[in-house]
């Protein structure tokens, strides 16, 4: 890879990527991990996440010519495409229902087991998050898994920061109820079995 390209600032890289395959490849590599992780956190399945990540970047290739903006806007644009692609996948896939059913069963079976077991915690978390509506899933994932600021989440989901803050509050309330129902009554300093 061209070392000059590797050294480019993101804003310059976006300009270069319009005419240079190497620059586009570099831009892709700078963002691949973040988008893959976001998809993995939304879908809780690395294979699905790889499929969806592929779709996301294909959309990016197809639409890159129409993108106008700086590095931050590109970053938000990527997350917006990823969010829509994940939502589209969840909507169209019957696997979500199947997955939810499996997680419910797992959850019911493990209520009496120790909550120190990571697999158990993961199953409950999956069940709780996947049962939220897609917008709440998006906001929770961006905020807590990707550590993205409220103002940037607002740009990704096309709302104001204040609305996102409000929806985050609602989403957490719902999540809390679902996790309590699944047996987790306390999160701070570990997890208790309710």
């Amino acid at each position: 890879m061209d070392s000059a390209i590797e050294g480019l600032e993101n804003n310059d890289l976006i300009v270069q990527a319009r005419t240079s395959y190497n620059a586009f490849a570099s831009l892709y590599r700078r963002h691949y991990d973040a988008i893959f992780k976001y998809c993995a956190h939304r879908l809780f399945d690395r294979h699905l996440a790889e499929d969806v990540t592929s779709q996301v970047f294909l959309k990016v290739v197809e639409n890159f010519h129409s993108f106008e903006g700086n590095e931050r806007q590109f970053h938000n644009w990527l997350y917006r495409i990823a969010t829509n692609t994940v939502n589209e996948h969840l909507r169209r896939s019957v696997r979500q229902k199947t997955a939810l059913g499996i997680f419910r069963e797992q959850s019911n079976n493990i209520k009496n087991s120790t909550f120190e077991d990571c697999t158990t915690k993961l199953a409950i978390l999956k069940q709780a998050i996947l049962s939220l509506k897609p917008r709440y899933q998006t906001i929770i994932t961006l905020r807590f898994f990707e550590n993205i600021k409220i103002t940037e989440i607002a740009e990704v989901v096309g709302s104001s920061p204040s609305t996102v803050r409000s929806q985050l509050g609602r989403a957490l309330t719902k999540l809390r109820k679902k996790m309590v129902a699944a047996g987790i009554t306390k999160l701070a300093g570990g997890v208790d079995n309710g």
Partner: protein
Amino acid sequence: MADYEKQFENFIRGIDLDDTPDPKHRDKLEQNLLTVLAKTPRRPNPLREIWRTIMNSRMTKLCAAAAVLILVATVGWLSSKHGSNQQIPSFTLMARACAAERTLFYDIGGITHIANEIILYPGPERDAGELLSDLESDITKEKNIAFIKSWLSHQWLPVYSLRADGKPREHRLELAGHTDEAVTISDLAWYDTATGRFARVLKTGDQVLFANAYDGESIYLATNGPEGRLQIKQELVTDEFQVPDNPADFLGIAAGIRGSIPREHFPPIQDVTTETLEDGTQVRVYKLGFADPWGKVDTYYSFKIDTETDIIDEIECVVDGEITSVHRRMVAKTVDSSEKSWNLSELSVAPMGYISARIDTDADTNIVTIQQMSQRATSPVYVFATDPSWTYDRKIYDLPDEMSAPAHMFAATYPAKDGRDVVLCQGETFTRYFSAIDKALELGKSVPWTYVSDNGFKALHQSDKEGEMWWTKFALKSSGFEPRANRVGYILISPANTFSVIAINGPISEQELQELIDSLINAKDYVESPD
């Protein structure tokens, strides 16, 4: 950060997620992408740099433009049988009220202080995108109605500030609390009639949410910055700066509403009643709005105007039958000049809390060429190879399609000499919406196609039955045309199975319709051979 947020963060840290990227997948995908990229024709655009400058804040501009269009369409549906009273046009009514409000500033003289109260009520929890997804998975009449209403509604209150060049800037004030309860905001303004100096501050309790001031040299703007903290910006005014002659245009109770809706899109007066306020003031209550697709006027502004002075006492905004905001006049008096500082940098920079005023740039529309439309479209888009013979001056508007981002929505408008204006709307949200309808109704079977063209288009005429023509009014009204009672609409399915809609503002013969549809051509093909 709230306790539970921290707890949740800790909880997640303790979970081992399988989220390590696989370099093999990354490299393989990179090769695939580069192969696709190599096959994708480069689209050099000499206008790119110009566009970049113009569209510096394109999305926010378009969002604002779309919001205005949505506000217009909110309502969309001007229907004479629903008590429309056009004896006093609504825009004239507003202009008259603003002129009357000017007297509040100048009759009192010196430094005028005006205090208003804004109450914001929580809106519906679900947005149009979610409702559309819901509709796609399982369509019902109730879901259909909920989606359309959500699509056509807006949830924010426009607020205006003055920029350093003297031009107005639109902001949006919206509720953002963790609570579902209404929030009261004090809207305080001071205006010095002799010098034009002014200050406006929006507060909830002691907390400043928004402020704009002019101290004779600089413009100050205080809004929410990153992480919800108050951010104060000071700018020396430019040479062209001039304080508007009528302070009611930017400080007044109706300034935001008057400034955010184009004159030709102003909703009509549907009803006028009289009322006596608690302090004994007699007011006329004007209901400004459009009937919805089902004939109801449940999204509207209600203006309470003093019968003696013509000054607005209260504005109530109702969306889908629910009050979303009330803006009420409280005090108008003269104050001692020594009491007032015009310099906003004295404001305390405290966290903003629950409410914020979000900045959006001035509403603008984005007109594109056929070539630009074909480049930006994410699915096939079509144009008439030959513009309808009775029309002139085609314009294509590029609008954000937030529900299907990164897709765009396009509206090609053709004003007509004989009033039969034509609007062709297309975009992925249209395709998603009508595909859902198609899934349920099996278009073409339940109702036969009106016309199937040789170029692979199928057209379905929409009857005049109440509620079925809502989108034709949406399309025409949003494009600046006044929908006529004899307008017609067609849903089109393209050879690529995308949906679009044509609204024509008047009757069309069978031959005209067929010529119109026969001439539809993929925009990419048009660009390659426009003749």
